[in-house]
């Protein structure tokens, strides 16, 4: 286990809703090896944000975790006290959120917010500011010293996301989580931010869990990819394995809908006919069967097991199972 920064085992998350218990994630396993970038890909509503909120333990109040372990640097995050958890957040474990427009406080200066999060350090204010200036410089904000006194609304969206990345990496965490950090940005900015992330990741040497519904970005940035469908991991492996030899019909469809060609990528969500199943009353058998073009009889009643398709390449599909 020690070669992983983050090891998620058998994790399930439910939301209590008016319609009943919504099983947003079921028995999810994810590994983030030290120093690697792992991409999580899936359609809207498949549970990506739920996954992240579970890892940083900021789930909505109507959520509960019936089973699972989230092992981070040798400790199960789910059993930590609120205080211990707070010590990890923003120190060993950082996050960049989806929408840079709303994820910074509008009435506090960038400098205030960047020095506030260094509250653990026994440094002088001047040293903290200097640290923030250096961080802003490394994410490519020009004239960082005076920019520190400005408010978020005085920055463009791309700059705000750079600031968010600077904030997240300021404490040199061992794991950076990025929840679709480029979805709100246009294509050129997206490429810039991706390159920036990759470059900073290698200088700091942290691991990254990168969430996206954009295959092109995952292919560009990540070492491993985890494909999630309706709250279950359907396929995982190295980026080259999964993208070159997809094993699950859902991955195949995703790739078909999104030409991996980064130069002319479409910015729309992949469209696969049919809808995600109702997570309150789950169908029996395979979760993807209603939208699958290669469905066989077994899919109706039997839940597919996770099987080795190749070295470090796992898939949950009856078509790939031996019998």
């Amino acid at each position: 286990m020690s070669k992983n920064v983050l090891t998620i085992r058998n994790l399930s998350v439910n939301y209590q809703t008016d319609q009943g218990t919504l099983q947003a994630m079921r028995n999810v396993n994810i590994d983030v090896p030290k120093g690697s970038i792992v991409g999580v890909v899936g359609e809207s509503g498949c549970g990506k944000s739920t996954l992240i909120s579970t890892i940083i333990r900021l789930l909505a109040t109507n959520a509960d975790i019936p089973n699972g372990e989230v092992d981070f640097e040798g400790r199960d995050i789910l059993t930590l006290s609120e205080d211990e958890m707070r010590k990890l957040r923003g120190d060993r474990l950082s996050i960049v959120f989806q929408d840079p427009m709303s994820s910074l406080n509008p009435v506090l200066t960038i400098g205030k917010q960047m020095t506030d999060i260094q509250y653990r350090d026994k440094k002088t204010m001047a040293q903290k500011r200097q640290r923030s200036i250096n961080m802003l410089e490394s994410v490519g904000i020009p004239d960082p010293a005076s920019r520190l006194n400005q408010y978020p609304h005085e920055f463009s969206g791309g700059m705000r996301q750079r600031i968010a990345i600077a904030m997240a990496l300021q404490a040199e965490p061992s794991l950076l989580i990025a929840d679709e950090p480029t979805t709100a940005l246009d294509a050129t900015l997206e490429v810039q931010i991706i390159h920036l992330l990759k470059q900073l990741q290698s200088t700091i040497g942290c691991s990254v869990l990168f969430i996206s519904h954009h295959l092109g970005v995952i292919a560009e940035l990540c070492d491993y990819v985890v494909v999630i469908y309706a709250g279950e991991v359907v396929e995982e492996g190295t980026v080259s394995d999964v993208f070159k030899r997809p094993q699950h019909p859902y991955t195949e469809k995703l790739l078909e809908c999104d030409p991996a060609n980064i130069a002319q990528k479409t910015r729309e969500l992949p469209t696969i006919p049919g809808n995600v199943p109702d997570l309150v009353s789950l169908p029996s058998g395979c979760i993807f069967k209603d939208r699958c073009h290669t469905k066989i009889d077994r899919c109706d009643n039997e839940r597919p097991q996770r099987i080795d398709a190749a070295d470090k390449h796992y898939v949950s599909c009856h078509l790939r199972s031996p019998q």
Partner: protein
Amino acid sequence: MLIYCIKRIGLGILIVMLAVTLLFFMIHLVPGDPARILLGPRATPELIASMSQQLGLDKPLPIQILMFFANLFRGDMGMDVITNRPVADIVFGQLPYTLSLILTAIIGAALIGIPLGCYSAINRNSLADRVTGILSVACITAPAFVVALYSLLIFAVYLKWFPAVGAGEKGDFGDQVAHLVLPAFAIGLSWVGYLSRLVRASMLEVMGENHIRTARAYGLPERLVVFRYALKLAVLPTVTVIGVGMGFLLSAAVFTEIVFARPGLGKLIFDSISTRNYPVVMGSVLVSTILFVISTTISDLINAWLDPRIRASL
């Protein structure tokens, strides 16, 4: 910030001028002789003549407006024909009483209501939150004059904790404060409830925003998240409401000053309406209007100081 201040204060002055112009036309464009109307039942031919002179009624309208403004600018609001004292002296003599009453009421209400709202928001749906909720609504719905009467009966007449009537001995600060407690309580009580509900609602809204999630994701202590990251945004609507609320407090002061037989603008307006002493009514209304404009200006300036986006907007 400086530019915003200048613009906002300029706007305030403009509004006062508009209000004054409106007031001018109200007196001068109603049918009949303005001097006669202003003098009401006391109109003798001599008084009408001197009043016409004072108002400059023989001059053309634009000159009259200019004179009106020029007089106001020098602090001259005409003479009170009954006491033969300048209206300005009478009005400004009463102003401190009302001002101290209103300010005590609203500052007291803010000091109690805002923390109460924060507490309710943080401990949302707890027993304490529900109890404050019910009490707040009870406070809001209790009319100021009812609270005034009952607090007078209970705390002044039966318990004798506080004096019942008047504004206290001149120069005796402690006595004046003691006389302030019940009237301020009467008009401030509903504001405690109102502000606590308002702060609770906006606090809950802000606490649900993305940047609060960010602050928490950085492991900031909850105290810092609530009081630095959330409260600064959550008080913005409250500051606006307090600024506008000064207008309501001015009208609540009328009842309260009568019930407690306290001197003040409200009492002055009431008395001069009943004796149809229009110059004094006008002077009081004018000063109240200016007071209202000042308080909304101040609340806007406070908001601009709190929120940089407002600063950039005007």
